């Protein structure tokens, strides 16, 4: 160790300063690449992001170069000071960007401010170092050496960034790592020039602090990453997993559990009973002697929990695409408590399959079918609300059988809701539309459908229900004056009108 540092001390002053040019150049380009990559990840459209970031960065370097003329004394000390600043700003940049992405209204302003700040600082350094070396080289030598190292550094950065850094370190660690390189050079310079510069102690202390901060960041990168994600949710994340189909996130606070799929709320434990009671009971209760029940979607087992309240039901077949969802609802303690172990019941068969394909191949008949798919927000899911899909139900239902469909909010998205009703009717079903208030969602719509035309409901609901009974259902079936039925087209595979309605109506609601 001692021998090493002695060796280091002997290295030529000029070589050390040129080496720091090399480090500055490498780090500077790395920060720029990190910002570009991160912006492409978060904002998409990599061509635009990279072009604008490179442009802003180069322009800011120009500003830095211009500002360098205002530094007249203590050049080495200033150089070290700036180097520490680059280390901190550059090193923290990617974490700051990740953390702020969901929090600030105008993420781009933060992004470009950070890029400009890094650019200005790096832009200051090269002119400063040239002036420090001014007396030690002939001018032509100076220019040739400084720029040679500058560009070699840039080359190194652009080669190692995609090949080594991103795959092995990830973006956050890469920033911290290069911040450490900057801070390390600053510290080295402090020791090397300790006799020649003023404010040595102050500079050494800031270098040390910067290094400590960056080491801590480097070590805690994973936690910073998951914290950044958790900030998108109001509550603590207790479970999260990325399945091949979606991101599943479970959050918890004192009062409730919430499940999010791709960031969209699926239920809150505080009022999900309203949704699931309204979904299941009006229909199932009206089927005489239901034995076989099918649930499409609904991998949370909450609809199944309601179905199992009917002792006559012999078997519940649950078809849900995502094994990750059905898995946590079979195993996670709070979720199993919530669905009352419904998915572990002997009466329940869980099938992880694509509902459309499964239904197309199914030959079995059911007395009651619950369809609880995500809202038709894209063309893939829109297929599950098409007339072709509903026609498959004809052979799936027993003659007395009924089907219920969750059909988005008739208040927010009346066209979408009535489009589901009209599509079912176009397939020859008789429909019974109704809606219920679920505080987490708002006014939510359901549609009951059957082959017969006359509707006979059973006023005797299971006693233990908290929400649905004959009186409350009578209200659910009434659509008040501000929610009238609207005319819509039929949703077909070859027009997918529902996706268009849904996009239009929810976009208006959100804005």
């Amino acid at each position, binding site marked *: 160790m001692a021998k090493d540092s002695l060796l280091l001390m002997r290295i030529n002053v000029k070589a050390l300063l040129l080496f720091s040019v090399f480090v500055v150049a490498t780090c500077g380009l790395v920060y720029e690449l990190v910002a570009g990559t991160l912006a492409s990840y978060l904002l998409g459209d990599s061509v635009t992001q990279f072009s604008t970031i490179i442009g802003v960065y180069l322009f800011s370097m120009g500003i830095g170069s211009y500002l360098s003329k205002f530094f007249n004394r203590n050049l080495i000390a200033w150089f070290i000071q700036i180097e520490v600043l680059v280390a901190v700003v550059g090193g923290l940049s990617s974490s700051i960007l990740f953390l702020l992405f969901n929090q600030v209204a105008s993420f781009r302003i933060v992004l470009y401010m950070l890029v400009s700040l890094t650019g200005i600082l790096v832009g200051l350094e090269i002119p400063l170092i040239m002036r420090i070396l001014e007396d030690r080289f002939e001018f032509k030598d100076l220019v040739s050496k400084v720029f040679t190292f500058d560009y070699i550094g840039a080359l190194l950065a652009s080669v190692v960034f995609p090949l080594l850094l991103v795959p092995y370190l990830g973006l956050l660690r890469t920033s911290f790592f290069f911040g450490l390189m900057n801070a390390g050079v600053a510290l080295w310079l402090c020791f090397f020039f300790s006799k020649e510069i003023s404010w040595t102690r102050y500079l050494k202390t800031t270098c040390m602090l910067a290094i400590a901060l960056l080491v801590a960041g480097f070590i805690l990168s994973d936690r910073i990453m998951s914290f950044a994600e958790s900030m998108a949710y109001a509550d603590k994340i207790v479970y999260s997993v990325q399945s091949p189909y979606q991101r599943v996130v479970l959050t918890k606070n004192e009062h409730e559990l919430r499940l999010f799929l791709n960031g969209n709320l699926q239920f809150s434990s505080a009022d999900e009973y309203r949704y699931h009671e309204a979904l299941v009971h009006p229909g199932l209760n009206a089927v005489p002697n239901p034995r076989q029940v099918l649930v499409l979607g609904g991998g949370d087992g909450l609809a199944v929990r309601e179905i199992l309240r009917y002792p006559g039901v012999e078997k519940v077949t649950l078809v849900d695409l995502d094994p990750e969802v059905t898995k946590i609802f079979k195993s996670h303690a709070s979720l199993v408590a919530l669905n009352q172990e419904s998915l572990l019941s002997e009466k329940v068969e869980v099938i992880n399959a694509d509902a459309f394909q499964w239904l197309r191949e199914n030959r079995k008949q059911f007395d009651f079918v619950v369809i609880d798919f995500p809202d038709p927000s894209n*063309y893939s899911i829109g297929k599950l609300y098409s007339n072709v899909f509903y026609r498959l139900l004809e052979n799936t239902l027993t003659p007395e059988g009924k089907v219920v469909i969750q059909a988005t909010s008739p208040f927010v998205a009346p066209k979408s809701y009535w489009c589901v009703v009209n599509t079912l009717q176009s397939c020859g079903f008789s429909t019974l539309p109704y809606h219920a208030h679920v505080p987490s969602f708002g006014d939510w719509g359901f549609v009951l459908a059957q082959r017969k035309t006359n509707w006979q409901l059973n006023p005797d609901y299971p006693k233990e229900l908290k929400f649905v009974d004959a009186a409350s259902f009578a209200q659910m079936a009434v659509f008040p004056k501000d929610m009238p039925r609207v005319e819509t087209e039929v949703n077909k595979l070859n027009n997918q009108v529902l996706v268009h309605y849904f996009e239009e109506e929810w976009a208006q609601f959100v804005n």
Partner: protein
Amino acid sequence: MPKQSGRRDFLRKSMAALGGLAVSGGGLAACANKAQAQQMQGQLLGPSFKAGHLLRKGITVEPTEVEEQEVVIVGGGASGLAAARWLKKHSAKKILLLELESETGGNAAAGKNGHTAYPWGAHYLPLPNNSFTELLEFLQETNVITGFDGEGLPNYNEYYLCFDPEERLYIHNYWQEGLVPHWGVPEADQQQIARFQQLMEELKQAQGKDGKFAFDIPLGHSSADVQYRDLDKLTMLEWLQQQELTSEYLHWYVDYCCRDDFGSSIAHTSAWAGIHYFAARKARAANSESHRVLTWPEGNNWLVQRLRESCADSIRTNAMVYRVGEQEGKVVIDYMDLRTQQYKRLLAKQCVMATPQFVNQRLLSALPALLDSRNLRKFNYAPWLVANLTLKDVPRSKGFGLSWDNVIYGSKSLGYVYANHQQVALFPEKKTITFYHALADEAPAAARGKAYGSSYDTWKEFVLQELEKAHPSLREQVEQLDVWVWGHGMIRPTPGFIWGQDREMANMPYADKVYFAHTDLSGISVFEEAFYQGVTAARQLLSSKLA
């Protein structure tokens, strides 16, 4: 001096360090490339080259094994199969269909991977005109039409009607919905495009003096009025210029359509044919808009499989016919069984040549009287390139989402079709896209030479580069990339060809014995024409004096 050596030493060391990094970086890059190369697999495919070569060389063997047949159909593409189906359905004749390849289907070839079937050629059928009853009847037989409504309009099977979203165009770095350019297109150009569409709407309804539609499908049903037929003397480009339609965007769009349907550019396509593309189709359906199409993951192979089922017991594949002649009032068909390498002779009362005319040029050399009466060298064909890519995923880019047909503005290629589109599953595990390219920029023979002469790697690179225009990161998604070259992909309706004498003469039956059915005899290569060619030849055969 010591200072000097110190610096040199430092320089040397830092260079060495940098060199080391560069080497390791290079090594890594090489590994990555190797991994990618191993990951991306593929091969060059195409119709039987060997057989083609043998035919060109000429075979003179006189087969000793002779077999009698009533009707022989040479060629198992859509028109040959349609002829066979018609004869089976409307007569008790014993027929035999000979096909060179190991499977029938011609240009409607298809392949299959673990996730989906995909087309190697023709891949959709526009809703047929309601007057085309023969085709409607076939579609009803195969449950493509599931019934008719009160007005008599067909209800199409919604699994086969192209799902929404149907088309998108990548223009100005954005995917717009639909293929007619509008995203970032200047007002003046949009007006020209609208005027063009208006003209096409008018021509769609236009009728000649004989009361027939100016443009119809089958093409033979179109009006003989010279006012319209004379359009065949112009190129599509000349016609656009005559109409003062000069917008670059419009020209690209019309050119794209001509390449897509005819394999030739607007500068080489007859204006009659070019307009026919826009104005001939006037289908009315109970459950679909008029301009929609029917499609299947395997493309039109689905249709030819249904045709094949109607005559499956009368098909001989791997049968390379090399001579068709005449002997004692019978048609002599000599062929080689490619599996056993044996030469065989068929003696038939009648024969349908469902082969393209460039093949007939060789097969019929034993019938000089027939060949002299027609000018088959006037038939020329566009070479095509089709590639199928299996992807981990189709990369997302700005704008409208993945559609059935995805076209890149400004590209000379025809974009790609998403083979999984007609699957109902929400998340296909792998996605397959079919890339199409008509080699329309050079004279067909030169283009054909190039198409056959280029290696798999050359084509692979070409396909990737074309697709990278819209999907810069596509390469890393590709697991399999196969390329298929069609030397004679489709007949080109050059000016004067459709309503000229050469085509008319080539359609003529010979001596009540030899009948002709192929899309090249219609002048445009689409399933409807192939089907109609087969039906027409079969009808002529059944009404002949011999029958």
